[in-house]
């Protein structure tokens, strides 16, 4: 058996009790209902539990003691009727308040309870006992309450009385009481203003609106899903194309590299004092730097974070170069570098070549370590990586990657590179110039047929 009392009823009883200067008693009105809980478990054995729930809705305080019983504790039915009137059928129990006493039913209470059970015809009449315990110095007062059902066996008499929503409602759910609201005023107001909130079916209008919004969102979401799917497919196609093209580029690069090597060998056979040895002893041949990216290009995947260098692109595609320089010359174009980035030593000779007779310009360009940034129609890579690569090359990041892969003795200091480039420029220029290199990027950033990033 379980019992519950609404918070306001409980507080009302406490209020009446605490304000009385003697013992206080009254009746409890409410409902008793049976709850059946059927629990189903994996063993397929369902068990039904019957629980009797006593709900206390109201209370009816008695004006004075001994109002419906005499000294001997005999209950007078007439007095009972005059107190309860038509509420008699709602009585489910009675209560008593006494200060500074034990939580036990007293002699008279037991006698009265027996008679009330009989007279009211409630077999499980409950008795709620309040007691106020105060400490000797009145510093602490405790209100204790116990709910008894004295008609049961002696050992089963106390029932826990729960007060819903008495506690931390931020943690627990706020429970709605099942106490029926019998207020006429309330019913009237609700009837009047109900149409604003409820539609003809009794469902709150807001609920419908919200549901409509929800449906609309769902539809839109479905549509977007379709679009996403389509764009994904397009992207897939383009990605495939890009991969193919990259493979082609790599292939072409390899071919041009081989051709150049043959050419170089042929040249080396002619001139014995090759300044290239002095220029970049660390690199071997001035062209080797240029060729550096080539072997590495096929290694790189098409969508790798290290997109092919400019020189790779330059060497593989004539259209990249607005100038009429042969593809090989494109390979010799200095790789674009941002100012301040560790410079690739190889652009040294290429810069010379680009000077085309402008020694100063060359020198200038060399000192400032300019780079040509060839225009690349490959800006769009499908995944945008190439443009990033261009940017990064301009920023000099690509150079790092290339150099790291190919050049073991890479010099990380930009200034050193600059110096080395400047020193070696005049030496190389002769051999480079012979090849008719296109104009190099002047220090002030003018590109000769190239684009600066």
């Amino acid at each position, binding site marked *: 058996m379980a019992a519950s009392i609404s918070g306001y009823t409980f507080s009302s009883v406490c209020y009446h009790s605490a304000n009385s200067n003697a013992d206080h008693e009254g009746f409890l009105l409410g409902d008793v209902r049976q709850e059946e809980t059927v629990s189903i478990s994996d063993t397929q054995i369902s068990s039904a539990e019957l629980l009797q729930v006593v709900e206390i809705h109201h209370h009816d305080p008695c004006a004075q*003691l001994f109002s419906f019983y005499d000294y*001997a504790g*005999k209950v007078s039915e007439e007095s009972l009727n005059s107190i309860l009137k038509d509420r008699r059928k709602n009585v489910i129990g009675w209560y008593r308040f006494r200060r500074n*006493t*034990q939580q036990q039913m007293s002699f008279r209470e037991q006698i009265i309870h027996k008679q009330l059970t009989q007279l009211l015809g409630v077999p499980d009449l409950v008795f709620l006992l309040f007691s106020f315990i*105060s400490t000797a110095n009145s510093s602490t007062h405790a209100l204790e309450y116990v709910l008894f059902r004295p008609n049961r066996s002696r050992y089963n008499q106390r029932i826990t009385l729960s007060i819903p929503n008495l506690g931390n409602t931020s943690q627990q759910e706020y429970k709605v009481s099942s106490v029926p609201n019998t207020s006429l005023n309330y019913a009237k107001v609700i009837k009047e203003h109900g149409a604003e909130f409820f539609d003809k079916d009794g469902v709150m209008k807001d609920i419908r609106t919200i549901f409509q919004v929800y449906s609309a969102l769902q539809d839109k979401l479905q549509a977007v899903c379709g679009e996403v799917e389509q764009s994904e497919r397009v992207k897939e196609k383009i990605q495939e194309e890009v991969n193919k093209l990259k493979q082609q580029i790599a292939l072409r690069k390899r071919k041009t590299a081989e051709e150049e090597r043959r050419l170089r060998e042929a040249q080396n056979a002619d001139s014995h004092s090759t300044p290239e040895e002095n220029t970049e002893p660390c690199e071997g041949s001035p062209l080797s730097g240029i060729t550096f990216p080539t072997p590495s290009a096929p290694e790189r995947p098409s969508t790798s974070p290290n997109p092919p260098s400019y020189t790779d692109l330059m060497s593989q595609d004539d259209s990249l170069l607005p100038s009429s320089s042969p593809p090989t010359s494109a390979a010799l174009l200095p790789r674009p570098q941002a100012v301040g980035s560790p410079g690739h030593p190889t652009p040294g000779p290429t810069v010379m070549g680009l000077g085309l007779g402008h020694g100063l310009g060359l020198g200038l360009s060399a000192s400032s370590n300019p780079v040509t940034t060839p225009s690349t129609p490959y800006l769009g890579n499908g995944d945008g990586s190439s443009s990033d690569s261009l940017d990064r090359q301009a920023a000099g990041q690509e150079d790092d990657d290339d150099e790291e892969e190919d050049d073991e003795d890479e010099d990380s200091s930009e200034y050193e590179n600059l110096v080395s480039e400047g020193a070696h420029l005049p030496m190389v220029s002769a051999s480079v110039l012979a090849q008719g290199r296109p104009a190099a990027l002047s220090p002030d950033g003018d590109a000769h047929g190239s684009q600066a990033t």
Partner: protein
Amino acid sequence: MNNMSPEVALHRISPELRPLLCSVVRNGRVGLDSTNCLRVTDLKTGCTSLTPGPCCDRFKLHIPYAGETLKWDIIFNARYPELPPDFIFGEDAEFLPEPSELPHLVHWDAGNPECLLQLVKELIQQYHHYQCLRLRESSRLLFEYDSLLEDPNYGRNMEIYAGRKNSWTGEFSARFLLKLPVDFSNIPIYLLKDTALDPGEDVALLSVSFEDAEATQVFPKLYLSPSIEHALGGSSALHIPAFPSGGCLIDYVPQVCQLLTNKVQYVIQGYHKRREYIAAFLSHFGTGVVEYDAEGFTKLTLLLMWKDFCFLVHVDLPLYFPRDQPTLTFQSVYHFTNSGQLYSQVQKSYPYSPRWDGNEMAKRAKAYFKSFIPQFQEGAFANGKL
């Protein structure tokens, strides 16, 4: 709030309820054990804490019953002093007396100071009936009860406490408190007047505890009111025979009763015998008597002379004279011991028979003195110094 003196309790209680409580604490004796009076503790109030005192209107009443102390809560309402009180019967939650059996409750009269006391007495009576009913759980003990009830000597002065059944072992215990119908009226007054407390009624109570329903563990105990105990010779008088196994109260109690009666008789007789003895000695020794106990007749001192040798004889008569022999102490009037006392010799065994009457005893004593004195004289001269 325990062991509160009655006056403190009366001071704290609400003035309108004071007369009722007064008669309870001052004159309240209920039950057989009237040496313990009712005690009041745990005075509390039913008014709000802001009410100025004294306004206590509920308390705990301690009632001695059958060797136990019942602690009942009595609840009044200070604001409505004309209303009868309510009771909580402590641990006896099942005790529910019929209100019709409590006339002082039905016709409660707050103006009568005795009303509460009378009500408590009626409740005790009902409680007794309730306990007797509980005896039905054990047929053996019920038999004991019924058999005692039939005997008018014991039936009316009985308190039963049927103990709580031990829910684990199912054991049932009970205690019978019986007032023994022994007549103490003839005990000499001198024996009774020495007690410091107000003796009250002279009563002997026999408490028999049955620790189990089959009466295999029975513990009897005798309680005497202090004056009787003193009159009968202290706590040694309380030795009673053990409860015979397989025996029953209806046989045992009269046994104890008889024992006690015999003891009392002894004491009374002893008194008379002693008086007779002293009288005989007085008549025989006449002027030789120095002094004697004229109230209890327990002592007698004689100054005698034999061949110019004077000596004192102190006669100490025991409580259970003539069963027990009087002690004779001879004392020399000339000689001292090393410790500065008069040289004396004590004689406990000498020709004596309890069957002699006073005269005979006096004669024999005289003869004994004559035979013993030479010996004593020698001893005195030898061991004492002048």
